[in-house]
C-alpha cells in the first residue's frame, strides 16, 4: 500500500471511531448497519472481486447467519457460540455451493446462486416450526461480554466496528499471502493457473466458503442490531444490494466494500428529503456511475491519480520514491 492509501485508511479509521459521538441514535444505527454490511461485502468481494466467481447468494448467507444466531441465543446458547456456529455453518454451506462453480461460470453461476437465494428464502418463510415463518423472530438480545453490555447503540456500534476491524485484518492477511495471488490467478486465467500447479478446484471452493462465512458473520451481527428478523430481509434484494456495494466500491479492491457499503447505506437515507423520488434518483445515480466508471469509486480514484501523475512532470520521480510492496 502506498503512502496516500495509508493516510486514507488512517483518516477513515479516525472517522469511524469519532463519528458516533456526533450522531443521534438513528445515525449510530446507520453506521452500525454500514459496519455489519461491510463484512458481508468483504466476503462477496473475496468471492467475486478476487476469485472472479459471480455470486447472488451473499444475502442468503447473511440470513442463515442471522437466523442461526437468533435461534441459538433464544434457545439459551451463549452469543459467542452462536457467532462461531453461524460462521462454521455458512462456511460448510458455501463450500457445497461452490461445487456448481466448478462446472458453470459467469451468468450461469449467477443463476445457480440466485436459485440458492430463493431456496433459502422459501425455507425461512415456510418452515414455520423452525423460523416462525413470515412473523419472523423478535426480541433478539444484544450480547454481553464479561460484564460489558452492548445493549446501547453506541456500545453495539463499537462491537460491530471491532469485529469488522478484526475480520478485515484477517482477510487482508489472507489476500497478502500466496492464497491471494492464487485467487487472482483463478479470476484472470484458470487454465494457466491449473497448468502452474494451482489446484483451482480447492481454491474455488475455498473462495466460496470463506466469502460465505463472512456473510454468515455479518448476519450474526445483523440479528442483534435490528433485533427483529424476517425472511423478506434476506430475499434477493439484499443479495443485489451487496453486489451493488462491491461493484460501486470497486470490485477487486480491498477497500471497495467499505466505500460501497457507505454509499448503499447512507445514500438512500440522505435522499429521503426528495420523498417519493428517492428510488428513481438512486437508480439513475447507479446507472450513470456504472456507465462511466465500471471499476467503481476506487477504480475511478486510481484512474484520476494515474492521470495526475502523468500530467505532473515530477511524476516519474515520485514513483521512484515509492516503496515497493
Amino acid at each position, binding site marked *: 500500500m502506498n503512502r496516500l492509501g495509508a493516510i486514507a485508511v488512517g483518516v477513515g479509521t479516525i472517522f469511524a471511531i469519532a463519528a458516533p459521538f456526533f450522531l443521534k441514535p438513528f445515525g449510530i444505527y446507520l453506521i452500525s448497519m454500514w459496519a455489519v454490511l461491510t463484512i458481508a461485502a468483504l466476503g462477496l468481494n473475496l468471492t467475486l472481486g478476487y476469485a472472479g466467481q459471480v455470486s447472488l447468494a451473499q444475502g442468503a448467507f447473511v440470513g442463515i447467519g442471522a437466523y442461526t444466531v437468533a435461534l441459538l441465543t433464544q434457545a439459551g446458547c451463549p452469543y459467542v457460540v452462536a457467532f462461531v456456529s453461524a460462521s462454521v455453518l455458512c462456511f460448510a454451506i458455501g463450500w457445497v455451493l461452490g461445487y456448481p462453480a466448478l462446472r458453470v461460470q459467469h451468468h450461469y453461476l449467477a443463476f445457480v446462486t440466485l436459485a440458492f437465494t430463493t431456496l433459502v428464502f422459501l425455507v425461512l418463510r415456510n418452515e414455520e416450526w423452525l423460523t416462525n415463518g413470515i412473523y419472523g423472530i423478535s426480541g433478539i438480545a444484544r450480547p454481553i461480554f464479561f460484564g460489558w453490555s452492548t445493549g446501547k447503540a453506541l456500545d453495539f456500534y463499537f462491537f460491530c466496528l471491532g469485529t469488522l476491524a478484526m475480520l478485515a485484518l484477517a482477510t487482508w492477511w489472507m489476500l497478502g*499471502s*500466496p492464497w491471494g495471488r*492464487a485467487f487472482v490467478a483463478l479470476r484472470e486465467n484458470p487454465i*494457466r493457473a491449473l497448468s502452474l*500447479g*494451482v*489446484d483451482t478446484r480447492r481454491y474455488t471452493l475455498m473462495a466460496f466458503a470463506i466469502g460465505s462465512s463472512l456473510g454468515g458473520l455479518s448476519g450474526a451481527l445483523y440479528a442483534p442490531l435490528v433485533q427483529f428478523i424476517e425472511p423478506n430481509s434476506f430475499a434477493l434484494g439484499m443479495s443485489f444490494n451487496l453486489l451493488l456495494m462491491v461493484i460501486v466500491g470497486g470490485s477487486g479492491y480491498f477497500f471497495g466494500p467499505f466505500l460501497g457499503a457507505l454509499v448503499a447505506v447512507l445514500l438512500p437515507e440522505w435522499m429521503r428529503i426528495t420523498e417519493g423520488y428517492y428510488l428513481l434518483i438512486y437508480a439513475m445515480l447507479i446507472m450513470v456511475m456504472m456507465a462511466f466508471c465500471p471499476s467503481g469509486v476506487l477504480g475511478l480514484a486510481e484512474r484520476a491519480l494515474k492521470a495526475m501523475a502523468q500530467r505532473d512532470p515530477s511524476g516519474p520521480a515520485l514513483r521512484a520514491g515509492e516503496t515497493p510492496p
Partner: protein
Amino acid sequence: MTAVLQVTNLRKTFGGITAVNDVSFDVHEAEILGIIGPNGSGKSTLFNCVLGQLLPNGGEVRVDGKPTTGMRPCDVNRLGVSRTFQLLQVFPQLSVRDNLILAGQEHQGSMYSRLIGRADAGLGDAARRMIEFFRLSHLADEQAAALSYGQQKLLDVAMAFMAGPRLVLLDEPAGGVNLTMLAHLRERLRAYHAERKATFVVIEHQMEFVMALCTRVLVLAEGRIIAEGAPQDIRRNPTVIEAYLGGRR
C-alpha cells in the same frame, strides 16, 4: 535409463476427427525434442493430452515411469512437468514478480502452510534470479499487462521454469516474436538447458528456431508421426516436404 516422458499409443478424437492417432514416442533426459507439423496436425492436442488438459481416448502417458494419464493438470505440474501455451498466458493484473512467484508457490509446502507462511512463499530470491536471467529486472514491479508482447512471451517462458521442472513443454515459443527477441529467447532457452540439464519438448513452426535448438525432431501430420530424426535429416526427408508442401498421394 528410463525416459523422462513416455507416450504410448495415444489417441484423441473430437467427434469424427482423430486429432491424435496412435502416437508413441519417448523423451530422454536432457534432450530437446522438436515437434513440427502443418497446422491442424495435432501438435497442441498432443500436448494437452500429455499434460492433462484433455483426457485422451486411449493410450498412456508416463512421467519418470509413473502413469499420469487422466491426472489433473495441477497434479501433473507438481510432478515437475510444466508448459507454455500457444497463445500468450500471463496474469495481466499481477506484477512480473507476482506472476513468477505464483508459478512456483504451489510447489512450496501444503495449501494451509502457505496461508500462514511468508507472503512470497519463500520464492522472492528465486523470482529475482529468474527475472535477472531473462533480463527483465527493470520491469519486475510492472503489471504484466504493461509489457510488450515479446516481453510477455519471455515472462510466459520464465513462469514455466519457475518451479524448477524436469520437463518443459513449449508450445510455439517463437510465435509472433520479433527476430531480436527470438534470438534472445533461443539463447536463454539454451542457457537454461545447459545450466539445469532440463528436458524440453518444443512445438514450433519457425524452422530456423527448431533446427538451431533441437537435438531430435518428430514430424506430425494428420495426427500421426510421419518422420523422426536429427534436424538436418528431417529437412531433406521427402515425406516431410510432401506433408508441408502438399503433393500427390
